[in-house]
Each structure stands twice: as structure tokens, then as C-alpha cells.
């Protein structure tokens, strides 16, 4: 069990509306990641779900039961906090055992459960230590252990890895994914790190300003972002946005003009778009050196060589900041301030209208397993 349903959730702090109507369904066993920029309301949403924050309006339903008024423990959830929230005066064992002590579990059973959790998390050797003696990753695991022993239907994680260094974060990401497979519980995971979102999620919910910007499988968000916000948020380095003018629409897509050159982007056409200002979205990794269907000559100002890749930053004509970024081969022969011919192909392009809403891309993404584009339940 662990099916979850938000319907029309609102949250106000005084006059400020932080969550502006969220509708969301989460299937049992799903790993759902909430991402969004800082302050968009991710933690608030999670805390409402946990029962630590009141819901101003709307219903939260877990397994068919409305839980708005229920205390956290009655909701069948367990939460892992960003700061771990371990009790510094208790040993690891007592920290993990805390929820069981609250429930007055019998000593024997308690010991069994704690030891089982410790084994899963490789904490067997640490049970008698205090949290202060542990490394960041171990503390994180203790916090997870405290969640596991409750055997909750739904796990809530609020940026659990943000205090760890990059290497440990990658390691814990894998461990969490394994844990999810093993426990088969529903997991709701909040982060502002899109790598975490892309790698762990069955489904990503992108939040922006208290609303859902898009909700879908990781690759769906990557290949078919529904709006400028998601397009810019998912993907690293960020998608390039070029101002273009619409020149017409036909069955094979929308024809747009950039800097005197035209390209027909294969997206679902709409009528009456001629002359409108649109935004052409190009991912840095889709840019080639040399000719493409649309050529964009630039003079790189900063070049970052990462070994495997080279990141080229340049200013587009009519701009004085580096708003054009290309991700090219690690050994590409590029030099700063020397004009570079770059090109893109129409099938890789994204197109957005004045309101930032995407035109649906028509391309068959043959290289993508279609299963990956559908959120798995």
C-alpha cells in the first residue's frame, strides 16, 4: 500500500500563497522526485504530506483515506530530513530504535528490527556510536534507518543528500535506488539537484512558484519539455534559447527565421502563427561543429575543457552576456575569440510560443526506448 493523491492543494503563510493548487497522483511503489528552484515550495509540500504543516485548502489522500487532519504517525509515512535530525545524545542504535520505543515495541522484537535495518544500511559496526562520531554519509544512513524500522507505506526525503560531497552523493544515490527496489515502498523525494532527479526518479514533478510546471518520466521531461521553464531547468548545461520569428506552419512543422536563415522545426503546427515572436530551444549537446540545418556562427569567449567534453560559451549577436552554450567533443579544435561555425538539426530543436508553452515535438525518438518515456507505476 502507499497510493497517494493530492487534490487542489493550497498553502498560504499569512497573505503569501506558497502552494497554488497542486493536483497529483502517485502510484504505489513509485519513486517520485519533486524538483524546482529554491523557494518554490517543495519542502512545504512535503511537510504538508508529512503532517508537519497544515493544509490551507485541498485534500491529501493516502490509500483512500483523507489524512489532512491526521497526525504524522497515523499517515503511515516516515520522513528523512535534510539535516538528518539525529538525536545527538543517543547512540546510533537508540536513534534507529526511537520510533519503536515510542510505539513501546517489545525489546526483543525491537532489537531484531533495528539490527535488520542496520544490516541493510551497513551500520552494524556503528550501533554503539553517537551520531557526532559518524561521517556525513553514515549519519544519512542512520536517518534512513530510523525511517525504515517504522515500515512506512511512504518514505519522504527532503534533500537528503545535499549536505554530502559529490562522490558520496553519487554513492548514496545508487544506494537509495537499491533500497527502493528492495523495499518496494512509495518514495517521495525532494531535491533541487536535477542529476538526482534524473537518475533516481520513476517520475519527476517539476515545481515552479508553487505550481506543477510538468510531471512525467525523466526522459519525457528531457525530450518533451512542455514549457520554457522545464526546458531550462532539466538538462545541464542549460538549453539555449534563441529568439526567432514564425514564417509559417505546415504539416511537416513550423518554419522559423533566425538571423536571416530559416529552419522548419518538426513540431505540431498551430494556425495563425505567422509573424509571431517564438523561442527556439537548442540543447548544448545537440550543437555540432560545422554545418547543420541551421548555422549559428559564434565567437567563443570562454572554453571549459572537461576532458570528455568541451563546453563553449559565447555571446549571440545583439547580446553582451554569454547566452549561447555548446557541448562538444573533448578534443574539439576550438579557440577563444576565433569564430566557430556551429550548426543544429531541425529534429533536435524545441519551439516555444510567446507564453512559453512548447509546441509538441513530432519527432520519433527512435534512439529512445519508448518505455522510458512513460512513467512506470
Amino acid at each position: 500500500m502507499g497510493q497517494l493523491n493530492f487534490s487542489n492543494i493550497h498553502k498560504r503563510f499569512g497573505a503569501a500563497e506558497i502552494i497554488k493548487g497542486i493536483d497529483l497522483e502517485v502510484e504505489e511503489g513509485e519513486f517520485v522526485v519533486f524538483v524546482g528552484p529554491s523557494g518554490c515550495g517543495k519542502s512545504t509540500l512535503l511537510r504538508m504530506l508529512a503532517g508537519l504543516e497544515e493544509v490551507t485548502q485541498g485534500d491529501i489522500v493516502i490509500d483512500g483515506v483523507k489524512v489532512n487532519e491526521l497526525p504524522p504517525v497515523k499517515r503511515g509515512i516516515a520522513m528523512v530530513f535534510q539535516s538528518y535530525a539525529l538525536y545527538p545524545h543517543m547512540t546510533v542504535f537508540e536513534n534507529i530504535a526511537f520510533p519503536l520505543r515510542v510505539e513501546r515495541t517489545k525489546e526483543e522484537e525491537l532489537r531484531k528490527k533495528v539490527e535488520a535495518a542496520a544490516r541493510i544500511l551497513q551500520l552494524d559496526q556503528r550501533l554503539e556510536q553517537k551520531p557526532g562520531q559518524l561521517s556525513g554519509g553514515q549519519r544519512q544512513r542512520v536517518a534512513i534507518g530510523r525511517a525504515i524500522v517504522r515500515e512506512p507505506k511512504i518514505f519522504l526525503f527532503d534533500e537528503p543528500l545535499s549536505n554530502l560531497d559529490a562522490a558520496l552523493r553519487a554513492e548514496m544515490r545508487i544506494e537509495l535506488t537499491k533500497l527502493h527496489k528492495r523495499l518496494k515502498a512509495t518514495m517521495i523525494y525532494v531535491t533541487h539537484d536535477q542529476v538526482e532527479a534524473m537518475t533516481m526518479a520513476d517520475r519527476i514533478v517539476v515545481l515552479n512558484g508553487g505550481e506543477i510546471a510538468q510531471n512525467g518520466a525523466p526522459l519525457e521531461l528531457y525530450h518533451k519539455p512542455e514549457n520554457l521553464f522545464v526546458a531550462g531547468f532539466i538538462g545541464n548545461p542549460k538549453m539555449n534559447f534563441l529568439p526567432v520569428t514564425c514564417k509559417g506552419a505546415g504539416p511537416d512543422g513550423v518554419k522559423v527565421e533566425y538571423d536571416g536563415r530559416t529552419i522548419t522545426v518538426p513540431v505540431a503546427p498551430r494556425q495563425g502563427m505567422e509573424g509571431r515572436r517564438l523561442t527556439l530551444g537548442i540543447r548544448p549537446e545537440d550543437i555540432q561543429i560545422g554545418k547543420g540545418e541551421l548555422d549559428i556562427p559564434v565567437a567563443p569567449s570562454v572554453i571549459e575543457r572537461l576532458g570528455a567534453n568541451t563546453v563553449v560559451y559565447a555571446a549571440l549577436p545583439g547580446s553582451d552576456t554569454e547566452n549561447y552554450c555548446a557541448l562538444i567533443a573533448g578534443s574539439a579544435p576550438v579557440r577563444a575569440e576565433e569564430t566557430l561555425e556551429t550548426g543544429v538539426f531541425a529534429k533536435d530543436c524545441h519551439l516555444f510560443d510567446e507564453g512559453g508553452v512548447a509546441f509538441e515535438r513530432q519527432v520519433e525518438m527512435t534512439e529512445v526506448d519508448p518505455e522510458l518515456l512513460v512513467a512506470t507505476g
Partner: protein
Amino acid sequence: MKSNAMIDRYRWYEVIGIYAGVLLFLTFVLAPFVEGFLVSLKPLTYLFSSPYKFWPQNASFDAYFTMWERVPLLGRYIFNSILISTVGTIIGVILITPAAYAFARFDFRGRGPLLGAFLAVNMFSGAVLLIPLYRLMRSFGLLNTYFAMIVPGVAFVIPTGIWLLRTYMLRIPQELEEAALADGASRFYTFRRVILPLAMPGISVVAIYAFLTIYAQQFIYALTFNSKTEYMPLPVGLYAFFGRQDVIWNELMAASFLGVLPVFVVFIYLQRYLVAGMTAGALKT
């Protein structure tokens, strides 16, 4: 200067200045103690010898023995002093701890004004309020009991105690409590298992503060609210050394020192908590 940190390097004249300053203040603070101690060692007859000699001749600890005979209740006075302070401290801590928690965590109406009022109360010492307090004690029938000295003592440590402990408790991360709440613990369970242990250094500070304050202030209340000799604390009991004609200075000083001793012991023993508690911000989670 052994320390290697740049910030700890001083020029020679700065070092001299620092030590001179420390010496000056220590003189003012400690001279009465030294003088008092030396007086307690001098035989009474040498006390008023002129010219006055700072260093005692024929020094002896006789006064520390004879004082018990001259004032047979001396032991009782000392016991009373400690009893009043200890009971007062216990009651104080029991009242202050939950109150401080409430002021730290619950958002109730009038919290701000109340805290302000607590601060304002500190402007009045108990002495200013003696007469109203006297009437209060009389109507509660507390005059001439231990409680006459304990209750006002406790009352005046509560506001500062709440401030001290509240500040300390504010530094305990709220997430700890939320985690406990999410795990099903009740407020009270959380308070007992999580807040209390973590607030222990802060509670120690409050206990020390309460003990010292009540110990130092008890004589005002004793003088006013109590006339029973056997309930008197030491500071009042010392008057017994004031004879009809002369004052037995050496024994008076000896008894005073004995009276300072409990405070001293408490302080020595607990001062590391005091320092740790006052500087603690680093609650490692």
C-alpha cells in the same frame, strides 16, 4: 607567548598592560577575601594591635574551632543556608524548565509582552518589594517558615532563568522535534527524551545561577520574613558574633569563610558546565 597564532601575538608593552589591568581588578575583587582570611587566622587580641599588621603573627586556626562553641547554632545556620538554596534551586529548575520550553517553542498570545515583563522584573531587586512581599507572606501565612525565604528567592530567579534557558532551547534544532513528532512521539515524550537531555548544559547553567542568586539573596528575606532563630541562614546567623561590647572578628571571618565554601564548591565543580552552557551554540547533530 607560546601560542603561534598571529592573533595571540602581543608586543611586550601590550603584555605588561594586560597583566597590569588583570592585577588591578583582581586586587579589588580578591583583597577582601585575603584580608578576611588573614583576620580569621589572627588571635583576637592581636587584631587591634597598632600599628596594624597585615600578615598575622601567631597565626592559628583556633577561630575555626572556637566559633562552634561561641555560637552553638552555627551548624544549623549553615545547614539552613544550604537547605534554602538547594530547595529553592530544585523548585526553580522544575518551574523554569517547562516554562522556558513553552516560551521557546509555543506561539501563544502575550508571549512577547510576558518576556519583556520578565526582563523588567529584573530591574527591581527583591529589596524594593519587601513591604508588599511581607504583606503577601502574611496573608499566605508563610511568615517565620523556611518557605518565607525560599518562595521569594525562587520567584526572583524565575524570570532570568526562563530567559537563559529559553535562549539555550532556541538553539536546539526544531527538526529534531519534528522528527520525533513524525515518529509518533507526543509533545511530552519529545520533551523528556529529546529536549531535556539536550538542554542539560543549559539547565545546569540555570541551576548554578539559581543556587548562587538564592544563596546570596536569602539574608534579605530572612531578616524581613523570619524571626525564628533556628530557621536563620548563615548571613543572618553571623550576627551572633556581634557581642554586646565587641565583635569576635576572627571567628566571624572564619564562619563567613565556611559560609562561602558551599558556593565555592558548587562553582568549582560546575563551572565547566557554566562555560560550556553559556557558549554552546554547537549542538552537533
